[in-house]
C-alpha cells in the first residue's frame, strides 16, 4: 500500500521530495489534531461536570430520613436517593417499603396511590406493585428497584439491597 502511494507520488514530484513532503503533512496533521484535542478536552470536561457530579452521587448507598418514622399510615414520602427520586411508603398494614420512583419505561417519576393500592405512572399508564415494585401492567419492562428499610427512633434508614 505505502509502496504504491510512493510510486504514484514519484510520478508527479521530484525524486526524494515526496518523503519529506509526506512527512511534513503527516506531522502537521498530527500537530493539528493534538491542538484540536487540547481545545476540545477542557470543553468536554466542562460540559460533562454535572454528569460527573451525578455519578459520584450515584455512589451513595445509604440515606437517612430524619423523623420519617412519624410518617402516617397509607402515605408516602418522596426523597432523593443520590441523584434520583425515590419513595418511602408506610402501608396501611404498617409495612415499610422503599422503592426507586423512576419509571422503568421512560423515566417519569411515579406516584403511590393508597386508595387503589398501586404505584402508577401518569406518563404512559404503567402500574407497579407497591410492596415489591413488580411491574404489573402497562409499558414498564422492569420492576422498580427495591431498597432495604430500617426504622428506628430517630428516623428511617434506606439502603441499597
Amino acid at each position: 500500500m505505502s509502496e504504491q502511494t510512493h510510486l504514484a507520488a514519484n510520478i508527479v514530484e521530484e525524486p526524494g521530495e515526496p518523503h519529506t513532503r509526506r512527512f511534513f503533512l503527516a506531522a502537521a496533521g498530527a500537530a493539528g489534531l493534538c491542538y484540536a484535542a487540547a481545545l476540545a478536552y477542557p470543553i468536554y470536561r466542562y460540559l460533562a461536570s454535572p454528569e460527573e457530579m451525578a455519578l459520584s452521587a450515584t455512589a451513595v448507598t445509604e440515606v437517612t430520613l430524619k423523623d420519617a418514622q412519624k410518617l402516617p399510615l397509607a402515605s408516602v414520602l418522596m426523597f432523593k436517593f443520590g441523584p434520583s427520586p425515590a419513595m418511602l411508603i408506610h402501608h396501611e398494614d404498617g409495612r415499610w417499603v422503599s422503592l426507586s420512583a423512576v419509571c422503568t419505561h421512560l423515566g417519569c417519576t411515579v406516584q403511590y396511590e393508597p386508595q387503589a393500592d398501586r404505584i402508577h405512572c401518569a406518563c404512559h399508564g404503567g402500574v407497579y406493585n407497591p410492596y415489591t415494585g413488580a411491574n404489573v401492567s402497562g409499558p414498564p419492562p422492569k420492576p422498580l428497584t427495591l431498597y432495604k428499610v430500617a426504622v428506628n427512633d430517630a428516623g428511617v434508614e434506606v439502603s441499597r439491597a
Partner: protein
Amino acid sequence: MTSKTISTTVYDWVDERLGLSELAAFARHKTVPVHAQSFWYYWGGISLFLFLVQCFTGVLLLVYYRPGVEAYESVRQITFVMHFGWLIRSAHAWSANLMIFSILVHMFSVFFMKAYRKPREFGWLSGMALLGLASVFGFSGYLLPMDELSYFATKVGLQIPMAIPLIGPAIANMLRGGPEVSEFTVQRFFALHVVVLPAIFLPLLAFHLWLVQRHGNAVPPSEEAKPAGERKSIPFMPNFLRKDLAMWLISLNILALLASVFPWALGKQADSLVPAPAGIHPEWYFMSPFEMLKLLGAVLPGEIGEIAGILLFTLGIVLWILIPFYDVGKESGQRARAAHYFGLLAVFALLTTTVIGYWTIR
C-alpha cells in the same frame, strides 16, 4: 462511480442551487494590497476572531450562569466547581479585553491610513458603532459575576449618565432597574449582554464585513500616490487568507497563554454594606474617559464640571465619528494634516489620561 465523480456530481448539484462557483470566482479575483503598512490589515480579522471566541466561550458560560440573586454563586460554581470552568471564564474575560484592544488598534490604523474616505464612510461609521457596542458589551458583562469590583464599577459607571441634566436620573434608574445596583440590574444587564447586544451587533458586523468585501482594502495615501503599475497585491485566496488564519492562530495561542497563566480572579461577593475596596478603578478601556472627567472635575468643581466633561467628551467623539465628512480630499492638504494631528492628539490624550489614571490609584 469513483469518489471523484461522486464529489463532482454533489458539487454540481449544490452549485446549481446555491451558486458556489460564483462565490469561488469572486474569491479568486479578490486581492489584498501589499505595502509597508500591510501589517495593520490583520487587526480587523483579529477583532473578528476574538469576537467569535467571545460567542463561543459566552455560550459555554451560559450553560451554568444564573442571573439575578444567584449570579455570584453560579459564577463561583463555574470558577471553582465545574471542570475547567475557570479556564472558560478566564478566556472569555481575556478575550473581551484583547478584542477591545484589537478593535482600537484597527480603528487607529484605519484613521491614520485615511481608510474612512470616500467610498468607505459607512465602513467607518459602522465600525464606530461596533466599537460603541463592544464597550457596552464590556460594561454589561463586567457586572455579571456580581463580585465586589464589578458591583462598585457598575455603581460608579452609572453615575455618569446621572450627570446629564433633567433626564440623567431617569436614564440611570432605567439602566439599574431601581435606585441601587441590585439583582434587578444583573438581570437586565444579562438580557442586554446576551440577547439585545448580539441582536444589534451581528447584523451590523455583517454589514461592516460586506462593505469590506465591496470596497476592498483601502491603501494609505502614500500608496495611492504611486502609479498603478508600481502597486503590489496578493490574491486573497489562498495567500492572504493563509496569513490571516496564521494571525488567528497566534491570537488564540496568546489568549490561551494569558487565560491559563493569569486566570481571571473572582472577588468577594458584592455587598452594599461593605465599603468599596481600596484602589478600585474602571477597566483599562474606560480609564481614559473616567480620568478625563476626574481631571475636569478638579478644574471645574461640582455639577458644572461634570456637565462640561460630558459635553466635551461627547463633542470629541462626535468630531471623531464625523471625520470622513470633513477630511474628504484625496491629496494631503491642510485638512488632511489637521485630521492627522487630531488623531495624534486623540492617541496622546487617551494614553496620558490612562497612565495618569493608573498612576493615581497607587
